[in-house]
């Protein structure tokens, strides 16, 4: 009973915080986009007669004060209406929604690849701590995240597409089209995860219970994997939560370079065209993803860390 109650409190609190986060995001995007320039200037040809511009201004509701526009927008969002795309002449949500699967596919695969490479690399580095294995793994990691993604993308295109002619440089029709975007999106994430895993492992290895495990005769490998890793994994999972957001946000450059038809590319196009409703919808969606990711991380935390599990239950045994 108290367990369920504690959990519901936890959820309610998180939900309230999530709503506040989203409201702040919407407000900032709304204000910034409207103060950054007149959307009609980029939509309509330069020589459009002023009276025609006024007609459009009225049709899109841009003649109202920013306060009226803002309140109107909030009202329609609350009803599930995210506005109409100026460019596509359709519901903004529909335009955005079409692009979600492509982004999820790329981001999801990149994150999985990053975890599968980064975590073992970080653990491996702790096994051979302060040896060449450690140094090689960590140098690779520094390389992985200090290389700007657009630069890595261009290098890969030059090498794999132009000189070796192994992979197509842009598009989304074949499975091969995914390979380079996954590398570009996943490499910095894998590098960060590797470093983070190593740091976390090194910290755990210094804990008294690791010496106690050695004193009871647990050999090195099971000690690192069975005793240190379950502890080290907890902060790594938190970190992954942030990376989910980075995968979606970081897709902007990657998707644009490789012409991958996802949210990131749509966002770049929509900003360029001042397609306000679409930009707002995408930003809201990214913010919502971040909020959900953080919530998932908190739940995963409880599953991984028995001490937090008690916290979630409320108090007591």
């Amino acid at each position: 009973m108290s367990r369920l109650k504690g959990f519901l409190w936890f959820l309610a609190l998180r939900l309230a915080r999530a709503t506040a986060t989203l409201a702040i995001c919407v407000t900032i995007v709304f204000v910034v986009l409207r103060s950054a320039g007149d959307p009609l200037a980029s939509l309509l040809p330069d020589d459009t007669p002023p009276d025609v511009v006024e007609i459009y201004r009225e049709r899109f509701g841009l003649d109202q004060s920013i306060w009226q526009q803002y309140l109107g927008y909030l009202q329609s969002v609350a009803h599930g209406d995210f506005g109409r795309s100026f460019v596509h002449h359709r519901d903004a949500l529909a335009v955005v929604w079409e692009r979600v699967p492509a982004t999820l596919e790329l981001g999801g695969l990149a994150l999985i690849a990053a975890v599968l490479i980064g975590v073992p690399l970080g653990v491996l580095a702790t096994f051979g701590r302060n040896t060449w294995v450690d140094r090689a793994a960590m140098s690779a990691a520094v390389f992985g995240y200090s290389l700007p993604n657009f630069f890595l993308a261009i290098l890969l295109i030059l090498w794999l597409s132009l000189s070796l002619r192994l992979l197509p440089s842009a598009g989304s029709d074949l499975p091969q089209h995914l390979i380079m975007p996954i590398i570009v999106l996943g490499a910095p994430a894998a590098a960060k995860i590797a470093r983070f895993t190593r740091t976390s492992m090194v910290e755990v290895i210094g804990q008294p219970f690791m010496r106690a495990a050695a004193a009871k005769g647990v050999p090195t490998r099971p000690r690192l994997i069975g005793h240190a890793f379950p502890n080290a994994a907890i902060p790594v999972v938190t970190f992954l939560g942030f990376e989910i957001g980075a995968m979606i946000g970081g897709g902007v450059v990657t998707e644009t370079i490789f012409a991958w038809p996802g949210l990131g590319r749509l966002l770049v196009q929509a900003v360029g065209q001042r397609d306000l409703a679409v930009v707002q919808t995408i930003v809201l969606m990214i913010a919502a993803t971040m909020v959900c990711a953080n919530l998932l991380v908190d739940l995963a935390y409880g599953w991984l860390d028995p001490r937090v599990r008690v916290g979630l239950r409320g108090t007591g045994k």
Partner: protein
Amino acid sequence: MTLVAIEGLTVDFDGVRVLHGIDLHVGKGEAVGLVGESGSGKSVTWLAALGLLPGKARVGGRVKLEGADILGAPDQTLDRIRGGRIAMIFQDPASALNPVLTIRRQIGESLALHRGLSGAAIKAEARRLLDLVGIPDAERRLSAYPHEFSGGQNQRIMIAMALAGNPDLLVADEPTTALDATIQAQILDLIRDIRRETGMALVLISHDLGVVAQTCDRVCVMYAGRIVEEAPAAVLFDDPAHPYASGLIGALPAIEGPRQRLSAIAGTVPDPRALPPGCSFGPRCLHATGACTQAPPALTTFGDGRRMACVLAKYRLEPTAIARELVDA
């Protein structure tokens, strides 16, 4: 019969010697106390003997377990000795247990490693061990995590884990320091009961002389990385020979007799990087003479199983020496 013999054990951290040649024997079934202030090398001695110090520590000398050299032995050999022959429990039981593994998993691991048990046998034996160390409702508590137990219970669990390997020697490193006074007594009683049942030898590392006096047959007093006095427990507390040992015992409050001011030993423990020449205790010693700064005094045997490292040892060996020196002067 000697179970563990430590001979000339030295430890250096980054070129600084912190252990200056420890000679220590533990007989089968014997209880030996190791006392001294923090930093005197009590724990380091046993961590070094079991190869548990970090890689940067330089360890020298010999450690023999029933005659076989174990210092610097391959990990495979050491992993069987640690927990299987010599088990260790630590000061802060809550941090010595892995926070994310169940008690069953942690006790079971020792049973699997050292007794080759598996499956249901592990569960049954783990339950028996929890019963033995006095954890109520063992069946249910096996699936609990360390944070769900109190400090005293965690130390009981550490003891159960140590017993899981059927060790010949338990090294208890300040096992009661982090616990309340009443819990301390319970844990010491538990250790004594278990020793009576299993005949296991005990090394009790403590800065608490009272704890050592109640539990041990023989006591070694350590100061600045050396053993300065060794004696049967009862003898040491009645008649400490080394000025440091008598200072420590003099600093204990007396329960009987008039209330007296506690005597403290003036000064502080020297930094291992800047030890005074000769006897490390010299600068704090009330009996220090010029001879004390010449060289560190060797551990000299006198009387019944007594040793001390002090220039005063010769007067213990030959009580008339003092009279002769006075006459000569």
